């Protein structure tokens, strides 16, 4: 494969099995700095499992996983990986339901994470301004004092994207961000992600084809734990193997 050193994310020959079932099978992916990669593929293709491996939730049986061209992610735990600058939005929106929108963002905000620093943390004006800005971006300013549990599904998705922004990561892994969003929200989300991808690396998993088209970026189709096709959306969707295993169904 290509030279690893200037990649942001480098997966080579990654395999993992659950009780004998091969969820990932020699998967290789490269993402460069300030690049967006859209991943499509049938249910059970291993898209979420791929994110689990990158974020330290699941250990691969085999293969290489590098961040920023040098850090071996397979040796680190979830917190260490997050602190390197990898943020993740989960397939099922996962926010802290019993806390307000504002507190959710405060928890995500990039700040020292150790016990004493959090005990004595006092939010200053610049932190506050940053959170206000994020609230504007994800259109939750009016809801900032509401509990996250009271948000609609689409708003929770946006809150989670806002938390990703607050984390200020170098690499964002975004799993099915537009599920439960209205059409106009979907369009907005595509714009937002494209904007983010100007300075950071973004990996987006999504089934919504019009959204993937809006992203207007490199597309990869996974099936049965490995790469089926790669290229522009038109190239990938014209690929007979892709039509057979995914689009045609």
């Amino acid at each position, binding site marked *: 494969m290509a030279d690893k050193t200037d990649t942001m994310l480098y997966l080579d020959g990654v395999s993992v099995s659950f009780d004998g079932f091969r969820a990932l099978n020699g998967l290789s992916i490269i993402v460069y700095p300030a690049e967006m990669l859209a991943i499509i593929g049938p249910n059970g293709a291993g898209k979420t499992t791929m994110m689990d491996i990158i974020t330290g939730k699941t250990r691969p049986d085999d293969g290489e996983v590098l961040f920023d061209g040098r850090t071996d992610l397979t040796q680190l735990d979830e917190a260490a990986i997050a602190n390197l600058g990898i943020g993740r939005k989960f397939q099922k929106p996962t926010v802290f339901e*019993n806390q307000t929108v504002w507190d959710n963002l405060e928890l995500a905000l990039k700040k020292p*994470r150790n*016990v004493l620093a959090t005990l004595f943390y006092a939010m200053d004006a610049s932190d506050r301004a940053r959170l206000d800005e994020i609230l504007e971006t994800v259109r939750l300013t009016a809801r900032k004092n509401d509990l996250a549990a009271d948000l609609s599904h689409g708003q929770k998705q946006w809150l989670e994207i806002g938390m990703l922004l607050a984390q200020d990561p170098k690499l964002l892994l975004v799993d099915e961000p537009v599920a439960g969003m209205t059409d106009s929200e979907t369009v907005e989300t595509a714009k937002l992600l494209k904007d983010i991808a100007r300075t950071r690396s973004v990996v987006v998993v999504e089934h919504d084809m019009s959204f993937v088209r809006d992203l207007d970026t490199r597309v990869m189709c996974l099936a049965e734990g490995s790469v089926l096709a790669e290229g522009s959306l038109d190239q990938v969707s014209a690929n007979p193997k892709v039509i057979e295993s995914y689009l045609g169904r």
Partner: protein
Amino acid sequence: MITQAILRALDKKAIWLVGILLVIAIAIPAGNLLIPPGQPFHVPAYIVTLFGKYLCYAILALALDLVWGYCGILSLGHGAFFALGGYAMGMYLMRQIGDRGVYANPTLPDFMVFLNWRELPWYWQGFDQFWFAMIMVVLVPGILAFVFGFLAFRSRVTGVYLSIMTQAMTFALLLAFFRNDMGFGGNNGLTDFKEILGFPIQAASTRSALFAATAVTLALSVIVCSMIVNSKLGKVMAAIRDAESRTRFLGYRVEYVKLFAFTVSAIMAGIAGALYVPQVGIINPGEFEPANSIEVVIWTAVGGRGTIVGPIIGAVLVNMGKSYFTGALPDLWLFALGGLFIFVTIFLPKGIVGTFAQWWRQARGPRRDNTTPRDTGASADRPLVAADPQPKPAE
């Protein structure tokens, strides 16, 4: 930095609570010492001691709530930390007896003379000094909690498994302290205390002073707990309670946050035990009984976990009930306690304080008060014991 954190901790509710506790700390002893018996506001000595005991339990319940209500760690072994603090105080009180024991041995406590021990074991050294004993009151429970928590939280033991481990811990200590050769008085424990800091332990003034010290310690515990739960760390603890694995993906070291809360909580429990022993006049291995730790959970659940006042109210009310029942209908107490727990679990899942707060908010109409998180299905339905140790927040 610290003053800022304390100021933030003292919200309106905490100020009221601390104020009430300080008033109690003065009023009850004054009612006992200054108002002669027969006068309307005289407080009898036994009431001073009884309520002193309740306030010790309140500190213990608040300590448990810090880990359980605020961080989701259901410890069923907090009685062990309480008892260890109590033993450290008991050892000091034993050494204060000096040669006034039955065997009149100037250094060895009676039970050691009885066992034909020639000299004081190394771990009894230093306990003749009050300051040393007070350090041990903090260190022994603190270090045990730290080591236990380090091993358990690092291995990501959660939910019922952790609860069972804490029960095993207190049970193991119960068996150990029962043994005569451990050197802690075996079955009988430590008792027959004479003096504390040179003051006769039975004297009305000493009892009042101990009561006041307990009330002030409870007030300090309220400040410490409010400081923690109102800080960003408190938000992280709540995040861990509600979605542990999500919190890790934000970069927080869940194991250290839990370790901090668990250790602080154990130290509070130990201090409560140290205040308890001179007031009840005895410490024995019975304090390590696993059932004791479970009772603490019931007090906290009854009062309202995840609140600061709740465990205090729960500890005092349930123990008042216990005092009544064990006097009037001793055989029925355990049934009453079990029934109470079932009643609270089913009908008042948020406890007295939580339920009252909910009524209050509803009575004030639809205008939403955003400063106190309104309860959602997620917290109301949160089971007392998480059956699934790692709720899967993400696919």
